[in-house]
């Protein structure tokens, strides 16, 4: 079925648009295959609002007399209202939006049609590859190698074609280790400390099962990681009890007797549905207009969102503590190793590694640790906070990462090269984008769909000098040290820029941001 077949009414005149902080506007509404376009022509100056249909999380229709009202709730948390004269038109528009906003076929999505004149599809896609990362990181050359064992994605469907592993472990061992890990996600290198050479590894859980199966190759692989040093730490992102229970369903954990030089620490992290429901509750609390502080605080508490932020930051701190202070290598995993594992390993790098705190460094980190590492974006970000659809595999792990990074920025306002604007942009793009970067669930799928050949890369476009500028932190002052965030509840705040983005509260903050820029610019001019 052609996309255009979903469109029964393409144009409606005399539509009234209401959005926060703006007077209502009258204009024309158009529905296209991928967009909702509202345009208002008044005194020659025309104003347009273009919304990607994919950005629409939920719609509500209401009939008022002969006309209808559609409330549009976007994944970036914006809520709009359209008053459409004529009930039939209203219903047609609503059903088009419903059908077109939930397309499942990747190649029908807008990034495959987005062709701006200033970008070209030629040239390499993305910022870096595993091989390039390896080449740039001299520290790795001695003991680590790039393995192409997964070049046809058969060993681990969610891993990229190339991964970094200990030099002394050959591909056969990797294959065996992969069979012993859920989804084939055998331990691979995530980060190597710039001065002491200790590493952060990540994987999925070992499939020890009820019978306490062992895998010699997996044990050897981890042994090779610490290579003679006395101790490594396994940070298991489940409670000890959960890890135990996982054995009943074929999963498990690394027992001390088999992994002699590794110590396991359990930190409980919520995942999947629970976190998604947190997001839903939080957004609901933020849009509750009743005027009681008690209700607000209890709803905020009840959402548990800040508790997730708290756990993610403290576990990341723990990882850094092991690597940076104590000089030990760390393996991080939960169950699948595609969500909290990536959250913790990438946060740890931001705390630890000055290189990941620049705009380029941060985007490279996201590319490496989330996109190439196989975070299932398509499943996790199918819906955001407003959708009434039954939850499948949605989970705002990536948004949680952005929130944590925001908390770090609040505590170290000079240490990150990028500003809140970059985080907000990413929070928007991950749910609905013109670019192909967040499409699909892993490299294999992206390859099959031809994402690299047929879409533009978000990160590349964000790094164009004129665009990058808007994401810079005017006060950036690089530091080589680890930036240890405080994880006390008093130190963690609600990310107002994100969750109260469409309120006046956030607008005053915008003014403050502009003032910061003007102070800094004035200073630079004098220089």
């Amino acid at each position, binding site marked *: 079925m052609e996309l255009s077949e979903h469109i029964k009414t393409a144009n409606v005149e005399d539509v009234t648009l209401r959005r926060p902080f703006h007077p209502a506007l009258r204009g024309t509404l158009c529905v296209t295959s991928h967009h909702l376009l509202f345009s208002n022509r008044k005194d020659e100056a025309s104003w347009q609002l273009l919304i990607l249909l994919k950005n629409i999380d939920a719609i509500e229709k209401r009939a008022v007399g002969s006309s209808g009202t559609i409330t549009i709730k976007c994944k970036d948390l914006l809520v709009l209202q359209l008053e459409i004269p004529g009930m039939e038109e209203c219903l047609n528009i609503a059903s088009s939006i419903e059908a077109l906003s939930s397309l499942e076929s990747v190649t029908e999505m807008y990034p495959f049609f987005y062709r701006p004149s200033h970008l070209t599809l030629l040239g390499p896609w993305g910022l870096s590859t595993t091989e390039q990362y390896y080449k740039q990181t001299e520290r790795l050359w001695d003991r680590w190698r790039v393995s192409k064992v997964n070049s046809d994605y058969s060993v681990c469907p969610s891993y990229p074609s190339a991964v970094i592993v200990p030099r002394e472990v050959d591909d056969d061992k990797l294959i065996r280790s992969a069979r012993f890990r859920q989804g084939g996600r055998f331990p691979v290198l995530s980060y190597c400390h710039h001065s002491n050479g200790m590493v952060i590894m990540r994987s999925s859980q070992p499939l020890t099962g009820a019978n306490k199966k062992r895998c010699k190759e997996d044990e050897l692989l981890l042994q090779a990681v610490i290579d003679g040093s006395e101790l490594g730490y396994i940070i298991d992102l489940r*409670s*000890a*009890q959960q890890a*135990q229970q996982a054995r009943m369903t074929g999963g498990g954990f690394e*027992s*001390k*007797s088999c992994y002699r030089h590794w*110590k*396991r*620490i*359990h*930190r*409980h992290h919520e995942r999947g549905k629970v976190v998604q429901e947190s997001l839903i509750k939080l957004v609901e609390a933020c849009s509750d207009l009743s*005027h*009681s*502080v*008690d*209700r*607000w*605080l209890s709803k905020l*508490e009840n959402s*548990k969102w800040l*508790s997730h932020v*708290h*756990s993610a930051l*403290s*576990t990341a*701190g*723990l990882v850094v*503590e092991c690597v*940076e202070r104590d000089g030990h290598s760390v393996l991080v995993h939960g169950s699948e190793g595609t969500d909290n594992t990536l959250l913790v390993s990438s946060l740890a790098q931001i705390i630890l590694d000055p290189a990941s705190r620049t705009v380029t460094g941060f985007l490279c980190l996201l590319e490496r640790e989330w996109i190439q590492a196989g975070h299932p974006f398509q499943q996790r970000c199918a819906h955001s906070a407003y959708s009434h659809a039954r939850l499948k595999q949605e989970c705002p792990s990536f948004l949680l990462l952005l929130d944590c990074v925001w908390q770090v920025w609040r*505590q170290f*306002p*000079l*240490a990150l090269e990028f500003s809140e604007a970059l985080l907000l942009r990413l929070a928007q793009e991950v749910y609905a984008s013109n670019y192909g970067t967040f499409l699909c669930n892993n490299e294999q799928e992206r390859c099959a769909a031809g994402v690299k050949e047929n879409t533009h890369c978000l990160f590349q476009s964000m790094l164009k000098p004129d665009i990058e500028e808007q994401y810079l932190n005017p006060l950036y*002052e690089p*530091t080589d*040290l*680890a930036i*240890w965030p*405080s*994880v*006390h*509840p*008093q*130190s963690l705040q609600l990310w*107002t820029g994100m969750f*109260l983005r469409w309120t*006046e*509260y956030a607008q*005053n*903050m915008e*003014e*403050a941001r502009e*003032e*910061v820029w003007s*102070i800094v610019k*004035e*200073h630079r001019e*004098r220089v």
Partner: protein
Amino acid sequence: MSCTEVWWSEMEHIKMPKVENVRLVDRSSSRRTQVGTLYLTATHTIFVGKGSEDRSELWVLHSLVCNVLKHKASQSGYPLLIHCKNFQVIQFIIPQESDCHNVYISLSRLSRPEKYEELYCFSFNPNVDKAERGHSWDFLDLKAEYSRMGLPDKLWHVTAINREYRVCDTYPADLFVPKSVTLPVIIGSSKFRSRGRFPTLSYYCKENHATICRSSQPLSGFSARCLEDEQMLQAIMKSNPGSRFMYVVDTRPKLNAMANRAAGKGYENEDNYCNIKFQFIGIENIHVMRNSQQKLIEVSTLRSPSMGEFLTGLENSDWLRHIKSIMEAAVFISKAVAEEGVSVLVHCSDGWDRTAQVCSVASVLLDPYYRTLKGLMVLIEKDWISFGHKFSHRCGHLDGEAKEVSPVIDQFLECVWQLMKQFPCYFEYNEKFLISIHDHVYSCHYGNFICNSQKERKDLCIKEKTHSIWPHLWENKLDFTNPLFKPDQSQNQGLLRPRTAPYCFKYWRRLYNRFDRELHPRQSELDCLMTVKEETQQLEEELALYEQKLAVLDKERAKALYMQKGVLESKQTLWSLPLDTSLANTPQDYIGGFIGGAPNVFTLQQGERENAELCLFGDKPKSSDADNSDQESGVADFSSHSSGEESLPSEDSVKDPDSDETGPNRE
């Protein structure tokens, strides 16, 4: 009794002037406990750390001590817990029980002076002469403030009726009333008001002649009337020619006001007063507020609470709900004055707590002047000090009725802080300024916040015997300036319209966890911006200087030479400064940049350091291992504040046949 005598009598309370081998416990990390000597002086408790290089000192003013508690003996000795009015919590461990008891007895007495003369401000003697002291009291002039508002004018004038404090002993000597009211009307009205606090002007909007007036509750009981009081309100309304009615705002909950009727007090009956619109705004009384803050303090001092515990505790304290109710009252009044052009009479019971809060917050909303450093000082001087907010009682300066103590002024400062959070560019001052004021309200270091009324201060010769805080704060105004302040816009913007949605009210970490250094951002955006701004200005001045020189020089060659020099020198100052003062996370700066800077900025100012104030001298960055030690402090955070449930490493040990991996004893 002279100061020396007082001093000697205080010395008598000191049973133990010095205790050795006392341990100062860092509540956030037991590893940072220090051993040293504890000294008790007439004015301070002083702890001097023993370390050879990092000799740290902790000075605590007795007047800042809220309470002293002995805890159960531990292995290492006898713990003594000191809670301060500025929310510092100090824990000493004293080896001998008798020493601990003696210190406890002495401190309990010293922190609860019985006479005004015992307060620190009477013995505080900075190196200034008499004339200068007198001068310090002239720094703020309320007469000038009223004339800034446009008073007196054809409708309002000063009445001399209270010059001797005979009509109302808790009011100031000079009061503004409508020109049209006669002396008998004022006296009649004052007799019909609690403690004689008749309606008088607090704020005047010269653009539209609307006013905020204040008073205490009327003695109306169930049916009493007072013609003069009715005339008084009528006169106030008529002094605003543009309006046909006025608001009377009773800031109490309706139930409380009704209960007061039984005691012969109460509220205005709309039928008796012409053209008033009466309105209750339910702000709770001082007792509710005291309990609420107590709960808030308990939450803020919880040891490693989980996110849920903290938020639930914050909610249960009700503190933010109270702040919101004060803010909403102020919003109502400011809108009435600025948007409707209607005058408002505000009262509560006595008109010195809630009334002071609401009038002053409304003034901050209405008038950009009160959002400047000097303006806030004037506002506090006017609405709080001169109008008889009972500082001595509310702050517990002297040993007395615990029920009189209440954080009324804290709430005012917090409302201003909440507004600053919402309008980052509209305030000339920053939160350090508010915190410094808070400090001095309680410290009894200066005379401003001593006593309960102007009359008491006059009787006690406060101006002759003590110093004023305001010029001192003014001297340090650079520390208190908000770099984001945009004066022009703020002038245009006049009325602030704050949001009062619940999410707009935040927990004031900088005040309540002020001394828990590890809780605060390690780098300060505002300090950094301030440096940048100062530098820009410096550069501009330099540029102007060189331009001047250039103008003087005729020869092209000489000109070129100077140009070059100018560029070079300005570059040097520029790049040397940010590198030194920036808050980058270099090992030294990691402690020193923000945190080290914090104690001296956030407590009291540099000049006072020698004069014995709360400073942690030991926070200066050490050389190389400073890096290490502070990283450890960060480390401690993660291990001790792990996420509640099964997260502690030691809880790893689930019963498992191969549970060889018990908790890795990482620490």
